[in-house]
């Protein structure tokens, strides 16, 4: 996958478990000399190698590890820029869910060589949705569960989000939104503090 994904795995491991843990992961994955600065498309297996190594070194099941990572990507202070990018998807949580269909295109607009997995949102009832994602990275559904839960909090929506398991095309996540404006949510301005045109 794109070098940014591998870098994100590095930030997550270091910010959550410390510098030494990341060193151990790289050693374990035999990637101690790997160049994470090169962002253009990297060897396809590296992302999976890293996820497996983090899981083994920290002795955590892949599912809950990826869920934590999803949560980290939205809620950790070091990931504020990414949270902002996701919030550009829509004014409310439901708007955001619909924007996931457009996310891979939007991402490619900025980074032509970054191919996000394809998302498809299906409205299956009142405020009930199924989100499917193609299965290029095994366990990505769990990452989405963590990310969506954190974003629902960020929007101030009350929602239950569960992994539904594997489907033919990849993995599937079930989303039920109970209340849109349950809590106040986090502040979001379209332009960052102090930015000018």
């Amino acid at each position, binding site marked *: 996958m794109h070098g940014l994904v591998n870098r994100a795995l590095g930030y997550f491991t270091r910010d959550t478990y410390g510098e030494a843990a990341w060193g151990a992961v790289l050693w374990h994955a035999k990637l101690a000399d790997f160049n994470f*600065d090169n962002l253009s498309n990297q060897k396809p297996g590296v992302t999976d190698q890293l996820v497996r190594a983090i899981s083994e070194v920290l002795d955590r099941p892949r599912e809950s590890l990826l869920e934590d990572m999803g949560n980290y990507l939205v809620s950790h202070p070091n990931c504020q*820029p990414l949270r*902002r*990018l996701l919030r*550009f998807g*829509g*004014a409310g949580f439901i*708007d955001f869910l619909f924007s996931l269909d457009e996310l891979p295109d*939007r991402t490619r*607009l*900025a*980074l032509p060589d970054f191919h996000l997995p394809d998302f498809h949102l299906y409205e299956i009832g009142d405020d009930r949705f199924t989100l499917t994602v193609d299965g290029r990275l095994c366990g990505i559904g769990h990452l989405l569960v963590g990310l969506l839960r954190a974003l629902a909090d960020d929007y101030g929506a009350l929602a239950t989000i569960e992994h539904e398991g594997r489907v033919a095309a990849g993995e599937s996540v079930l989303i039920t939104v109970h209340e849109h404006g349950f809590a106040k949510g986090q502040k979001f*301005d*379209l*332009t*960052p503090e102090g*930015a*000018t*045109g």
Partner: protein
Amino acid sequence: MKQTPKPGLTLDHGALDGLMPMHLALDSTGQIVSVGATLRKVLPHGVGPGLNFFDLFQVRRPGRVQTLEQLCPPQGQKISVMLRLGEQPMFRGAAVPLADAKGVLLNLSFGAGVLEAVRRFHLTESDFAPTDLTMEMLYLVEVKSILTEDLRRTNARLEGETSQARADALTDPLTGLQNRRSLEQTLDKLIETRMPFALMHLDLDFFKIVNDNLGHAAGDFVLQQVAKILLAETRDSDLVVRVGGDEFVLVLPALVSSPKLRAIAQRIINQISRPILFEGQACTISASIGITVSKNYQLATAAEMQADADMALYASKRAGRGRVRLFQSLLPKQA
């Protein structure tokens, strides 16, 4: 054949707002009849229906617009207008006549000032028409700033690593002194700029005895102590190099006086000859030094000067160690 005119379209204000939240509709006298919801947020308080468009706005393009008809460019070119009062943004847009000359409809946008407008007027996604690509643009701006910042940090780190690597490439890890590569660079620079300088070649005496009797750890310790002495006895502008085993070279720019060089060399030998304590054991060594200076040569070369300093050093060794020899003193006196 006679053409039947197509019927005009009519929209109510709500529908117009949904399509064009930045519109401005004028009647045939130039009075404002409708202002889009987003435009209302941006215009000063009180600007609304009933006021005359030309009292409020200055038309920048097309030029010399006096009447409502002139406001609508025939080929549908873009227009630009700005408020007469205050520091409001410049608007860009299109102006079209309404059917039956009933007025003009303007659809405005912020143009390149959109980022500033979003920040100043706290606009959100719902302030833009669904067809408007402003959100995509803001998204790109956001990604661009993240990547620029990331690039800046990566560059700073790589620069740090590069200068560390450069320092590593020029120093001797055991003593922290400069190495042979650094010596070559410095000699080339001095010769190129014709700066006068002295070259001192120093070799330790009895070092092999310390190494053989007390071991390599003692030997390494002695070398480190010698490095400290050499740095202490020279100026910051001098270069102190470990060229190998127990051999050192000193480069002293702007210093060619024989008595001064002899004095410095003798001081170094005196310091090095004092016993060095390693784990309670006294290590006694000494040093021999050979010197040459650039003014001995018409056209100095690094290789020739090093060979001559070396020759002077071996003259010192042969004379009984712990001594200094200047290369010019080895030459037969000129008549």
